């Protein structure tokens, strides 16, 4: 069990890195995009605009 937890922790650390907020922002941006695509609204602009907004806001942290 210890090894499974360590294995999972390694991959989470590898993928999410040292700032979990980035992963959350990306998932939220994609979810909003998917919903708009599903409703038939052109959604190509959502992710780039969301990412740019997130980057700007995240600069208040080091």
């Amino acid at each position, binding site marked *: 069990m210890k090894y499974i937890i360590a294995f999972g922790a390694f991959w989470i650390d590898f993928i999410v890195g040292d700032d979990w907020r980035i992963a959350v922002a*990306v998932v939220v941006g994609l979810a909003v995009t998917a919903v708009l695509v599903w409703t038939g609204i052109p959604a190509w602009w959502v992710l780039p605009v969301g990412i740019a907004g997130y980057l700007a806001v995240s600069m208040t942290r080091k």
Partner: protein
Amino acid sequence: MTTSQIFLVTSTFLACAVEMVEALTIVLATGITRGWRSALIGTLAALATLAVIVAILGPAIALVPIHAMQLVVGTLMLIFGLQWLRKAILRASGRKAMHDEDAIFAAEQAEARKHGRDERAGLDWYSFTICFKGVFLEGLEVAFITITFGAAQQNVGLAAWGATAALIIVLLAGVLLHRPLSRVPENTLKYVVGLLLTSFGTFWAAEGVGVEWPGTDLALLGLLGFYAIVAFVLVRQLRAPQAVRVA
């Protein structure tokens, strides 16, 4: 070559070169300080382990449907890219210390000198494990980048060429110079790789959830330009005195 193929080779080359420079610094610091035999055996053991992982993972990835692949790879790439880009913006604006390969090399050497000699299986165990871990972790990122970049464009071969070119150049430079590659503009490279990964990641992840990009592949150039402008504006803003007061 199409736009996305040029992007593929360039981003694989640059991303892999950055990771390889970091691995090289660890191996050089350990090898020069504590001797080469155990350091090189640790490096080769890590490379062999990576080869097994790639041999298993590579063919398995080809079985995943392309849209699912684009979504997963794009999402991961976007997460990696944003981490790199955010740090690169903070470094370029002076808000975060620059990545200094010379300083890291000196710190690795100081750490290597502190440890006594623990012989296991005829090896200097400290050198072996430090080089194994360093090369394995950086190499895992190289393997991940190469396989996923290539798979998302159904062209792992082309991505592998980018990675191989990076490996040859970094290895040659390391062998010839025998010191950390501090002249490699690593911070600038990370800035560029962050932009490329973020652009690629946005493109694929959005395609993965069903977005149709205006201009198809050319949208990649639009994304790259857009993120470059955003990053440039953020660096300028963060450098401004009023931004310092706010922080």
